[in-house]
Every structure is written in structure tokens, then in C-alpha cells.
């Protein structure tokens, strides 16, 4: 019996950001290729292993510092291509995927599933998604579906697995199935940009032009809100306006409304921020973050906050 499923962190899903790509085609043509990576398993001393894992976590972490090929090289040098250490196998699979090394990723995933620990269902779910996504990228979406299902069996609340499942269904020609899966993904993570994009395309294929337009609009707005390099007056204004429009189009995206409120506080518009948070708390009383931010604003208004 597995431990209770834990939804993989948003960070992990974010690192794996992606949506619909390949469709089912003929198997890849037999092109001359270099021999694939050999399966090797090394047993490093504990201190070397710990250092390599720490380094790999950093190299696979924040976007600015991320260097997946370096993480891949470091992990393979210390653990081999098929590590017996589960974390090393998992991180290696992630590094290989992000380094566009599908064969290395497959070797690492094999190693992970050989020793799959029961206490990391989040990693298991992500590993199944990676397996499926590799097949999608190889143009075999129908074969990817069982892998995404396995991920969801491990972690039913894994929005990213629902996204990939939706994409695989779309590329397999099942538009209605894709729509269902993508709508579920958005229900779980309203701000999942890629899911809105994929859903817009799926709606279009299903002939639902109006729904497609709405989802495409939401996707474009989310894209603007995630623009961390908005440096011109125009782009900052656009970003602000995007948050405001999303508040109307996607009110369930609490994270966005909180961000907008914080932006208003930074601009010294505490009055607007207060009204916005009161409205949000009234709509979503169960949101701990919303209540906390409201209290903070009210406290500041009373002169008790920073």
C-alpha cells in the first residue's frame, strides 16, 4: 500500500512546463545513430554522493542558475547512467529530460522504477509523466497515455499529469477526452498557462470557437503576467492590466489576485488592495493566504504593520 498521494510541487511542474507537441506518426525512420548510452551503475562514497546530489539540486533549481546538462554530467560521473540511489536516478532523469537526452532519461527512469521508494509518490508521478512525455515527443501519444494514467493513479491531484494526458489525447485524435482532462487540470491549477493554451486548441478542433477564444485570451494574459522581464512602461502597464482582466476571466486564480494586490501595495494603493482582498476573502473564505494578506493590510491600515 502506498502512502497517501502528495501532489508534486508546483515548482516541479513548473520546471517541466510544456504542452501539446507531437502527434502519432510512423515510428521514427531508422537513421544512422551513434550507439546509445551504456548502462552503468557506480557506488560513490557517501560524502561524494551527497555533494553531487546537492550540486545537481542546485543546477536543476532556479531558472537563472539552472544548467541541466551540467547536472546530467555531474550525476552520471558520480553515479553512472543507472544510479542505484533513488534520488540520483530521479534527478538524473529530470536532468536528462531537460537536456534533450531521451535515451539517458530512459535509462535513469528505468533505474528509478527498479527501486521506486514508497515515500516519494511525487517523484513517482513525475517519473511516469516523463516516461509518457518522452513517448509524446517521439510522436507516439497513444502509447504515452498509460504512463500519464499511472502518474494520476499515484497522484490524482497532479495537474501537470492531467495536462500531459490532455495533450496526448488531443494528439491521438480524442478532442473530447482532451477537453475533459485539460479542464480538470485547470480546475486544479487555474494558473497553469500551458493547459489554457492546449485547451484553446482542443476547443478549436471540437468546433467550440467561443470557448477557444476565451481560453486563448486567458493564456495570453497569463503569459503577460508571467513576464518577469517586463521593463518598459508599456509592458508593466500591460502586465498590470492582464492581472486585472484575469481577475474577471479567471476569478478562481487566487495566486494571481494575491500578486495583483501585492503589486498595488507596492505602488502605495493600499485602498485598492484592501478592497480587492476583502472581495477575495468574501468569495474564497477558505483561502488562508487571502485571509493572511487581508489581515496584513488591515493591520497596516491601523498603523500596526510595516
Amino acid at each position, binding site marked *: 500500500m502506498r502512502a497517501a498521494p502528495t501532489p508534486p510541487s508546483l515548482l516541479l511542474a513548473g520546471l517541466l512546463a510544456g504542452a501539446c507537441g507531437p502527434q502519432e506518426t510512423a515510428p521514427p525512420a531508422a537513421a544512422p545513430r551513434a550507439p546509445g548510452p551504456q548502462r552503468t551503475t557506480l557506488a560513490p562514497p557517501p560524502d561524494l554522493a551527497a555533494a553531487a546530489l546537492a550540486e545537481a539540486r542546485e543546477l536543476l533549481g532556479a531558472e537563472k542558475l539552472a544548467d541541466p546538462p551540467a547536472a546530467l554530467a555531474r550525476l552520471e560521473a558520480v553515479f553512472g547512467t543507472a544510479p542505484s540511489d533513488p534520488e540520483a536516478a530521479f534527478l538524473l532523469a529530470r536532468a536528462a529530460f531537460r537536456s534533450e537526452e531521451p535515451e539517458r532519461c530512459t535509462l535513469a527512469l528505468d533505474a528509478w522504477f527498479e527501486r521506486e521508494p514508497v515515500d516519494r509518490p511525487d517523484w513517482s508521478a513525475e517519473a511516469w509523466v516523463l516516461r509518457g512525455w518522452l513517448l509524446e515527443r517521439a510522436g507516439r501519444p497513444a502509447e504515452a497515455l498509460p504512463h500519464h494514467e499511472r502518474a494520476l493513479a499515484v497522484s490524482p491531484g497532479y495537474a501537470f499529469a492531467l495536462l500531459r494526458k490532455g495533450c496526448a489525447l488531443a494528439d491521438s485524435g480524442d478532442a473530447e477526452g482532451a477537453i475533459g482532462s485539460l479542464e480538470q487540470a485547470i480546475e486544479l491549477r487555474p494558473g497553469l498557462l500551458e493547459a489554457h493554451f492546449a485547451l484553446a486548441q482542443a476547443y478549436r478542433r471540437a468546433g467550440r470557437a467561443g470557448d477557444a477564444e476565451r481560453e486563448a485570451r486567458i493564456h*495570453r494574459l497569463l503569459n503577460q503576467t508571467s513576464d518577469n522581464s517586463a521593463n518598459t512602461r508599456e509592458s508593466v502597464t500591460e502586465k498590470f492590466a492582464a492581472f486585472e482582466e484575469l481577475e474577471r476571466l479567471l476569478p478562481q486564480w487566487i495566486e494571481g489576485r494575491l500578486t495583483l494586490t501585492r503589486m498595488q501595495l507596492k505602488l502605495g494603493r493600499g485602498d485598492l488592495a484592501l478592497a480587492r482582498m476583502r472581495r477575495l476573502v468574501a468569495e474564497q473564505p477558505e483561502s488562508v493566504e487571502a485571509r493572511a494578506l487581508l489581515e496584513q493590510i488591515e493591520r497596516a491600515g491601523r498603523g500596526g504593520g510595516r
Partner: protein
Amino acid sequence: MRRIAMGAAAASFAAAGCGPDPPAGAGPAPPRACFRDVTAESGLAFRHVNGASGRRHFVETNGSGAAWLDFDGDGDLDLYLVQGTELPGFVATAPLRCALLRNDGVGRAAGGRFVDVTESAGVGGNGCHGMAAAAADFDGDGRTDLYVTCFGPNVLYRNRGDGTFEDVTARAGTADGDRYHSSCAWGDFDGDGDLDLYVVGYVDYRVDDGKVCGDVARGEAWRTYCHPDMYAGIDDAVYRNDGDGRFTDVTAQAGPAGRGGKGLGVCCADFDGDGDLDLFVANDSDANFLWRNDGGMRFTEVASAWGVDFNGEGRTQSCMGAAFGDVDADLDFDLFTVNLSNEYNTLWLLEGGQYRDRSYASGLAAPSMPHVGFGVVLADFDNDGDLDVAVANGHVLDNAELVLAGTTWRQPASLYWNEGGGRFRLAPAAEAGSCFDEPRVGRGLAAADFDDDGDLDLLFTGNGEEARLLRNEIGSTRAWIGFDLTGTASNRDAIGAEVRVHSRGRVVMRAVRGAESYLSSHDLRVLVGLDGDPGPVDAEIRWPGGRRQELRGLPVRRYHLVEEPR
């Protein structure tokens, strides 16, 4: 090689030929490296100057392009190369000007050379910091003219027909202001039989804007060119050819007004098959534009509806160059863009009325990740009947090695073979040519059969470095057929015309391209690889405006001069 002219009734007669006949017989597989660097032996000596002084003016890193054109009407292709200019902090040691190189038998006669005729022709570029060039006969007088875009006002040169050009920018009204322009494209967008002009605007940038980017706290060496996100995008412009040497700026009614976009590349095709020429604009870290031509010089932006505004992952890409072509041989126009490193190059196949991102399944995505792509050509380099891909690569940051992990400023170009079944394979240098192993700061890429031997050669431009000419050594070992089209009712260059060649149950579609890639324009002739040796073939020409012409029993290994039926 002989050319055969085809009249309205498809009658054929031998025309003056040039150069030796190609070897007979078809090669089953590429026998040797596809491309050979013939820069030196052709006398091509052009070095781009980007004006870099260490101050890292944003405009330094993007140029420049090139255009193939037969300016002297002698039947072979000459070459125009765009030059930069002095920028604050940089003083040139010699006058900087664009270059017009006359082809005096290059590749076709012993000792053939390019001869620099810029001064006598009067096409030096007026001292602008040049970006793109697009060659076409805008006034329909049978002589190829030239439009040059700049960081600043653009220049339109009218070919006088005596080896000289006249700067007619002011009269034509096509300078397009003191703006940062990138690519441009000629096309008869209103279907009135003359060529209109689409000019891509990049960003609102001034050299003296005082913006400093990069981790300068670590030292001046860490200063970088700013990201385009530091600047607002500017509108593209659309000019309608009024037929009397003047153009009218119809941007406001046409569609691009107020859209911004940070455009870098542009390509044209009738992607929706309704008989008029549409446009795709590759935007840099902004959603792309797909302009559907609604007639009457009006366009509707439909990138989202057709699925090419973002990549298949829903992500904005830093798109540079772009090209339309029938990659999967289903007789419609697929689309390919080349992008920043870590943003895969994107292949969109047109399937069921919508574009689908097939980059990964095609094998084009993963190998492109390390590279920053600029110029791009979809062409059948080995004449096996399907479109291959060539990409000019080179990072935007001249100190990329210092400020970014695992990348370089100079990068090798890429050649991908179309293996059929929707799959591509990156050609190793042993197949592509050793020049594909050489790191360069690739920018423009223009294709032409400059030696008239029946295969497409490549001209690469480099930012701050020499242009390179690569001769195709293998294409003409397979059968091919070429078309040199002359419009009568439609525009004289037949830009936008589609040619469908029927051979052994297979139909191959190619089009006359009025500019694509990045800052560049190609040979306007259509060349179709036929694989094997099929004997005479049939062809159908769909002229701009919709007129169709059927030609039967055409001999292969020839260019056919075809005039639109009157």
C-alpha cells in the same frame, strides 16, 4: 545548362544557355559532402562591420542580410550584401557601404569571379546601418530593383537598366521613418499586378538611450546587449504600390497599426489556399503574427486561431528567421521558425486547417537547443523531392561564453536532411560539408542556384565577419527541373506563384518567394528536385491571382522560362 522558354501555349524552344551541362544519371545517395566553401575562389570578399566598440549598442548584434538578384539581366545571379555603419564609439578604418557583386561566370567558367560594382551602380546604402535586402521588379520594367532596410530610414533603389540604380526612396515614399527595421518582403498583396511591400519593425530603440545591461558590477566585460524586453515593440508597415513609382503607406487600414510585435523575420505564402498572399511575421519574445489577406490591402491577424502565435507548449519564443514550405509533401504550406538557444526551432505542420507544432516528432527540436538560429532556408538541397533545412546560427551576445553557461557566440550552422515520414536528421559535417563544423556568427542566409547547375547553393552572412558562399556539390547529381516565371497579368516576378510538378505519381509543390529567412531574399526561380531520373514531367503553375497553366512533357535538368498566358 540550357534554359527552355515556355510561351502561353506551352510551346518550348531552346534559349541561350550558359555553363556546362550537368552530369547525367541519378545518384542514389549523397556521394560526398553537400556543400563546399567557394568564398575565396569566387572572389567574394565582404566583411560585415557591426560597429561594435564595447558599448554594446543594441543594434550592433542583429545585422545583416543579403539578396540574390540578376541586376544586369545577363542571366546569372549577382549578389547584394548589406553593411553596417559607424556607431558612437566606433570609427571605421575605411568607408562602410553595402556591396553589389556582379557575377562574372562564378562556378560556370574557369576563373569566374564576383566583381564589386557598388560604386558604379550607386547602391552603397546611403550610409545607413543596413539590415535587410529584398530584390524584386517593383515597377514591372523587367529589371530587378532593390529595397534595403536600415536602423533608420530605408532605401529603395530603382534599376535603370544600364548597370546603375537610382535612389527613388523619397519619390516612392518608402523610407518608413527613422525606425529600427528588420526584414521586409515583396508581394502583390492587393492582387493588382504590381508588388507591394511589407516592412517589419523591430523595437523602439535609440543609440543614446543610456540603457546598460548585464552584470556590470562585475566589470565592463560583463556588460551585455540588452534583451528586447527592455524596449517596446514597434509596428510593421505596409506599403501599397500605386503603379506610378509611388507607394502609399496603408499600415493603418491594413492591420499592423498599433500591434507592435518586435518582428525580425517575415515570409509569405497563401497558407489558407484562397488565392492571395498571406504573411507570417516572426516576433522576438512576443507572440507571432499570421496575417491573413482579406483582399483590398486588409489583413486579419489569425496566429492564435491557426496555432502559430506561440509554440506548441504555449510559450513565447524569440523567433528570428522564418520560412514557409511544404515539408510533408501534402501540398500546403508548413512553417518553420528558428529561435534563441534553449527554445527549440519550431516546425508547424498544417493539418486539418490548423498548424500543429511537430518540432519534437520531426527531430528538429532537440538538435537546435544549443543554437541561436537566424537565417533559415527550406529547400531540397539533395534534389530528392523533399524539403531539407539549413539554419545559420550564432548567438546574440558577443560575450556569451562569459555570461552564459554552456554556450558560445560563434556557432556552427546546421543542415537537416528530410528523411521522409515527417522526420529530419541533423547532417554531420562529413555530409553537410566541413563549413558546417565551423563556428560563426551566422545571421542572413539566402539560397540561389548561382552557378545554374540545378541545385541550390547558400550564402551565409555573419555579424561582424565575412560572408561565406557555399556551393552545392551534390544536388545536381539527381534529376531536377527549374522554372523562371514571368508574370503578365500578375506581378512580373511572379512572386507568390506556385508550381506543382507531377512526376511518377508524386506531386511536388514549390513557390516563388519574395523574401524569407532572416533579412534576406533568395533566387526567385523555382527549382524542384525529382529524385532518380524520371524523364519528362508535367507541371501546373498557379499564377498569383489564380490563373492556372498546365505544361506537359517538360524535359528535366533545365530551367524553363515561362511567361504567364495573356
